């Protein structure tokens, strides 16, 4: 019987026959025959239901209600008669809605293209084309921002951007006559928001791309060189097509990850300076629901922001799969047909 058909039949026949002494079924065998594979699925199923599925449903229901710190305890938010689309209307009528949407798009697109994808790919290509130990050393360096606790990491960036004479960047720039010596985070926050997130984000793609590149058989690289390709041509015609799948994965995963990440921005600028200058969608959801300026946590309203973010993420992911021809990537090899 093939593995696939065994799996389809579910529970009953164990994949690996167990041998117990004296013909008595072991405890494992008895459990297996009584509960089948469901017993083994249960722990994971409980975790997913409790901490993923139920919260999603709650958030969705919350987003239709007007629950906030003021009516908490009195509003029966779970009852359909208290549901409406008011929160959604409020979001689209918010005068900062275009600003926040634009910020989010700008933040995700620039961080992804400059760092999480491009830098990751460039680091992976460079470190796989040099001597092994040197490559490893540089990859470890790039992992440091990810390993540093966020608060400390952000404090270091604030020191880098601080005003003269304390700021590290200003100590270089002011003697050269560049800038006014003021706090650089105030003057131009966006480059810092992108750098801060990008330096962390690049290491993810770097690790994935490096292992994908190293898994390409060396014969392909040699063949390409002998066929007359320069290093750049080998990258373009042999390496990139071979790592198409990891590229799709990194871009999709990192887009979703950037869309929902806000802790670095919260610690660095908290959406400022000024009104909504670097406020992104996820940060808005957090601010509305959990950190309202006036102390009135609008849980329902914040949930609505979060739900829209999820919809944006799903749309983005399905566009990527269309562009990268996901169906073809998972297509079964045709060798069996011959």
């Amino acid at each position, binding site marked *: 019987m093939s593995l696939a058909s065994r799996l389809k039949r579910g529970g009953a026949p164990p994949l690996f026959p167990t041998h117990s002494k004296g013909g008595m079924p072991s405890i494992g065998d008895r459990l297996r025959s009584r509960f089948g594979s469901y017993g083994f699925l249960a722990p994971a199923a409980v975790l997913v239901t409790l901490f993923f599925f139920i919260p999603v449903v709650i958030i969705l229901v919350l987003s239709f209600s007007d629950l906030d710190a003021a009516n908490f305890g009195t509003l029966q938010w779970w009852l359909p008669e208290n549901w409406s689309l008011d929160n959604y209307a409020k979001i689209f009528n918010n005068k900062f809605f275009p600003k926040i949407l634009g910020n989010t798009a700008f933040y995700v697109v620039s961080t992804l293209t400059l760092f999480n994808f491009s830098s990751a790919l460039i680091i992976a290509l460079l470190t796989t084309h040099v001597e092994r130990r040197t490559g490893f050393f540089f990859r470890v360096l790039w992992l440091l921002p990810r390993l540093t606790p966020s608060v400390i990491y952000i404090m270091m960036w604030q020191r880098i951007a601080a005003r003269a004479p304390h700021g590290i960047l200003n100590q270089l720039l002011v003697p050269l006559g560049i800038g006014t010596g003021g706090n650089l985070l105030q003057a131009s926050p966006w480059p810092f928001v992108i750098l801060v997130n990008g330096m962390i984000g690049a290491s993810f793609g770097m690790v994935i791309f490096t292992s994908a590149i190293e898994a390409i*058989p060396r*014969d*392909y690289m*040699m*063949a*390409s*060189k*002998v*066929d*007359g*390709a*320069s290093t750049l*041509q080998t990258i373009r*015609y*042999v390496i990139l*097509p*071979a790592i*198409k799948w990891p590229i799709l994965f990194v871009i999709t995963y990192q887009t979703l990850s950037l869309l929902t990440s806000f802790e670095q921005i919260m610690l660095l600028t908290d959406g400022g300076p000024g009104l909504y200058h670097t406020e992104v969608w996820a940060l808005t959801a957090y601010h509305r629901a959990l950190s309202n300026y006036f102390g009135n946590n609008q849980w329902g309203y914040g949930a609505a922001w979060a739900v829209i973010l999820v919809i944006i993420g799903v749309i983005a992911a399905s566009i990527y799969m269309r562009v990268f021809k996901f169906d073809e990537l998972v297509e079964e*090899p*045709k*060798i069996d*047909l*011959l």
Partner: protein
Amino acid sequence: MKVKLENLSKRWGKVVGADHINLDINDGEFVAFLGPSGCGKTTTLLMVAGIYKPTEGNIWFDNQVVNYMTPKDRNIGMVFQSYALYPHMNVFQNISYPLKLKKVPKNDMRERAQRVADMMGIGHLMDRRPAQLSGGQQQRVALGRALVKEPQLLLFDEPLSNLDARLRLSMRGEIKRLVIELGITAIYVTHDQVEAMTMADRIAVMKEGKLQAYDPPDELYDQPRTLFVAGFVGNPPMNFLEVEVSRKNGDYHAHREKFDAIVPTEQGEKTAGKGNVIMGIRPEDITISDEGVGGEIYVVEPLGRDDLVTVQIGEAIVHVLADPVLGLKMGQNVTLDFSTHKVQFFDPQTEKSLLWAE
């Protein structure tokens, strides 16, 4: 194109890949690099291809040193053991890849790729992916890709090792014919001595990075320069016996415990009085006869055309190819005739031939 390797060495720290290789290849010659795995034959080939840079020595293409020339400027074609066909490209794209890199115009490219594919008998498979091809077809695509840019030098890295036995036999003949017809200089790396013997004009036998011999196949077979070459070339392999040669009553005799055979004068003169020497004799050169050295048959293995008979003579074991008509049986006593002019002698210390030393 002529190729010359001059004192060519490749080392990685203390690891020696190739050790002072000297050989030259004539224009249009088909040369095989033969040796067991790890002998440096592929290392040497990759230096010729330009993938590895030599640590020492020079590679000459005609009158030019190419040590630091990149592979793409060398105008070579190469066939790999794994074929290394790009999995995301179809047959046409694989074959035309070298032309695309050369920026050959589209129409010209299509025509040349088709011509090569037709020559290889895969012209009808142009839009298949490598995964949709059989091993033999993949092999042809790999050959086509190597030939399409009309290289001056063809390199083969164990190209037949991944094919099944029957296909290997027919591809062997095809590659030989193709290379001769095109008149391209070719280097063929293999660990299979039959491939080397059947295909090459000259064979370079390598061991532990060193060139052991560089001779035409028949010379390699009949006049092996070293013990290693004698043992490596030929199947079933040559028998080796430690003997002492001396002159008795005008004849030269090789003798050891329970063993005494007459040695032709030519060989006897070069080996008599040198103490213990190693005598080498091929299984097909020993005959079962009425008189000679007596021994007992240890086992008989029928090979079809011959029986491979293992005979125990005292402590020594000797392999003999015998006519199946004789109907030899295990345990039977036989007498073997060792008197052949093809007998070889080697110095046990230097392992060099005592007959064909340069």
